[in-house]
């Protein structure tokens, strides 16, 4: 590819062509898939993004927008004959408006930095994916990111009011507006979670929420996963909407405890982290109710966070569980399928059966409140377990669909699960989605090969999971 046209619009210092530098962009958090792009563009403004995309449109060059590269489904996997457009240099917080409780930011701003900028006004940005230290709001928009607290607060799509986007032909437009009320089709809602296939976001207007006055957190141990699952069902059934309910099984507890010493009980079969927030009186009375429900289901130990430091420690353990899997297994795959909450116990039983059948261990750590699993399929590449583990991993995702759920709750389909999409959607469903895609990007240049199954993609075999370089360096954590 001739970089000259890209150099002409961006300047030589903002165009990478050196093979060593290009390798940095060969994968996102799904490190088993790697493709070195032909070129990386580093625009600094919306105009430069638009100019870059116009070059691509003119020359028929596919492009893949990229934030921090923490995605777990290969959504930012480059295309070999295409370019990567990194949004890392669009990182200004343009405005924090405390009166209207919103912020206007560029896509390269990290999720956590939005909350940091809002903090002086007693406000924060609610969605909290566990990579929030480094993941960018642009990537969050692409993936419709959630986090541990989305049971009560919802996902990115509930917290973005407007987005400036560069379309596949290089035109710049705005989706959404000043309020949730905007006439016509909700194109913003369709764009959020489209995994970078409908355009490149260059500016985001987010809602900010006041920080809850009271937050209460507990860890409840149980003698069985089923008891923990029934507890979750009863908490929700009691009409309580907790800010978060997380579950870990014994393997996950042990891994997390070994990694960060959060004070978990290592011989507990399962543990729940339950967090309530809101007005003080109601939090207190509902917290008592939750404790009572836990006791009724035979909770073997109840630990209540005495202060913010202890709450922080409890969450640190939970958030480390994912990366900590490396302590109990040389390699692992991660899935993030969803099942209806009432089928939690059933799906965990079926996963255990599948795992036993494959002779592979699976650790479970997940958002129990909304049925979003994060099974970690543990295996040893050196022992030739890769293929069996991969098959098991796919079988788990597809099992979730069979039980009335979804392939993915928050990681996205990306390149990773595109081949499983026909399990969840009919040909007509997918064809209709492609018609939407064609309205935005008729030439199919915008992040091709993601979401939708293609013969080429589905004929290929992914590699094993490897820690992301940032993860190995301890800069990010995730689940």
């Amino acid at each position, binding site marked *: 590819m001739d970089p000259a046209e890209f150099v002409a619009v961006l300047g030589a210092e903002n165009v990478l062509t050196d093979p060593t530098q290009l390798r940095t962009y060969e994968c996102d958090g799904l490190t088993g898939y790697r493709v070195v792009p032909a070129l990386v563009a580093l625009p600094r403004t919306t105009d430069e993004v638009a100019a870059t995309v116009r070059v691509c449109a003119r020359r028929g060059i596919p492009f893949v927008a990229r934030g921090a590269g923490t995605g777990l489904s290969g959504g930012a996997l480059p295309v070999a004959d295409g370019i990567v457009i990194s949004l890392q240099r669009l990182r200004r917080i343009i405005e924090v408006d405390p009166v209207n409780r919103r912020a206007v930011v560029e896509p390269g701003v990290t999720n956590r930095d939005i909350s940091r900028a809002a903090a002086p006004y007693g406000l924060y940005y609610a969605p909290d994916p566990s990579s929030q230290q480094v993941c960018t709001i642009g990537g969050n928009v692409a993936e419709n990111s959630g986090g541990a607290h989305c049971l009560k607060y919802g996902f990115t799509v509930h917290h973005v009011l407007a987005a400036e986007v560069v379309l596949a032909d290089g035109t710049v*437009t705005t989706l959404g507006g000043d*309020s949730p009320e905007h006439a016509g089709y909700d194109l913003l809602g369709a764009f959020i979670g489209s995994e970078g296939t409908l355009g490149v976001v260059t500016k985001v207007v987010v809602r900010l929420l006041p920080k809850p006055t009271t937050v209460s957190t507990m860890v409840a141990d149980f003698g069985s996963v089923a008891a923990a699952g029934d507890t979750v069902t009863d908490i929700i059934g009691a009409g309580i909407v907790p800010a978060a309910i997380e579950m870990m099984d014994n393997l996950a507890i042990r891994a997390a405890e070994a990694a960060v010493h959060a004070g978990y009980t290592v011989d507990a079969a399962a543990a729940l982290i339950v967090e309530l927030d809101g007005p003080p009186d109601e939090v207190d009375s509902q917290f008592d109710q939750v404790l009572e429900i836990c006791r009724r289901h035979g909770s073997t130990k109840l630990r209540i966070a005495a202060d913010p430091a202890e709450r922080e420690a409890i969450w640190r353990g939970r958030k480390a569980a994912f990366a900590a899997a490396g302590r109990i297994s040389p390699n692992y795959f991660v899935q993030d399928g969803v099942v209806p909450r009432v089928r939690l116990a059933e799906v965990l039983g079926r996963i255990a059966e599948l795992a036993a059948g494959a002779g592979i261990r699976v650790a479970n750590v997940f958002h129990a409140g909304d049925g979003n699993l994060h099974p970690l399929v543990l295996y040893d590449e050196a022992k030739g377990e890769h293929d069996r583990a991969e098959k098991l991993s796919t079988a788990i995702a597809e099992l979730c669909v069979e039980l009335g759920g*979804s392939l993915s709750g928050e990681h996205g389909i990306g390149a990773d699960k595109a081949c499983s999409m026909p399990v969840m959607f009919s040909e007509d469903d997918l064809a209709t989605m492609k018609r939407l895609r064609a309205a935005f990007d008729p030439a199919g240049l915008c992040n091709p090969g993601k979401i939708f199954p293609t013969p080429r993609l589905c004929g290929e075999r992914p590699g094993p999971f490897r820690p992301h370089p940032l993860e190995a360096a301890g800069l990010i954590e995730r689940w």
Partner: protein
Amino acid sequence: MVTHLRPANLAELSEAVREGPQRLLIAGAGTATGWGGTPTDVDAVLDTTGLDGVIDYQPADMTVAVRAGMPMADLQKVLAEHGQRVAFDAARIPLGATVGGLVATADGGPARHAYGTLRDMVIGITVVLADGTVARSGGRVIKNVAGYDLAKLFHGSLGTLGVIAEVVLRVYPLPQATRTVAVERPPDQGFDLAGQIVARSLEPAALEWYGGRLLARFEGTAEGVARRVAALQAATDAGWSEVDGAIWDEVADVALGAPGDTVFRCGTLPSRMPWLAGRLAELAGAAATVTSSVGVGVHTVRLRSGDPAVHAATLTTVRDEVAGTGGSTTAIRRPEDVPAWGPPPPAVALMRAVKQQLDPAGRLGPGRFAPWF
């Protein structure tokens, strides 16, 4: 002559759309016929009310799948038996508005303050496109990012992209207690006070500036609601007084209007509320009533029967000025000679492209988005 098609199930619906006459007007209970542009040259009305009833309700999962022609009021009754509800209070619900119609119009009520609109609660949708294609997106779980979310696209589509056939909704617990308090405040002070309430994290279910008063509705346990009302009194020292829940019927009446009225809904930055209230007073005087979901910047305006020229001038002036500052307006009832839509939003070309992809022959709801497309 306009034919009337009333399919009784999904297969019949697909066939009716595929085999039906050229131009179709999709209709539910007929509670929003005035929304948007006036349909033109319609060959048949496609009535969705035959697609009624709950498909699957899992109270423990807090999700419900329904046929889109089901009246929302009927659904609320079913849910209430299990202590649950759709946290949604659009004014048309008591008139029989259907779930599909409420999605297609992107309607909402004061509960939008805490819960948003159906956009935020639909977790799965089945639609029938102009060529009869049956397409689903989403599913039956709250958390789901697989594939594009077609439900968003159809929210506010006013029957121009396809027929909404089935909808899966997230439901919430029915609160044990509800209390509403009110205090008189002019618009600017009302806005400031609303900001203080939000900042205190008292989590009101609705916060509405209406009729010169700020209304705050609290929902939850009896004890919790009482305590939050007390906390509100203590924190804001504003002289709140308890009001009957019937006040919300008055708020709903603003959105419903009556024949001869002009009704429209604007979305703006929340802080524009005092400006809007002032502008309406200047343009229409006592004929204008506004109710404003002041925390989120959604304002519903009713101009009572009177001089149509004043209505027309008020609607077009406000609409242009709102658009000029990045806001949006939807006409709900309007004088015949006023265009249904004002200045188009920046993404109108993209809306046209979506329409072209899903309904290339322009069969569905012709004229609804005129003059935009």
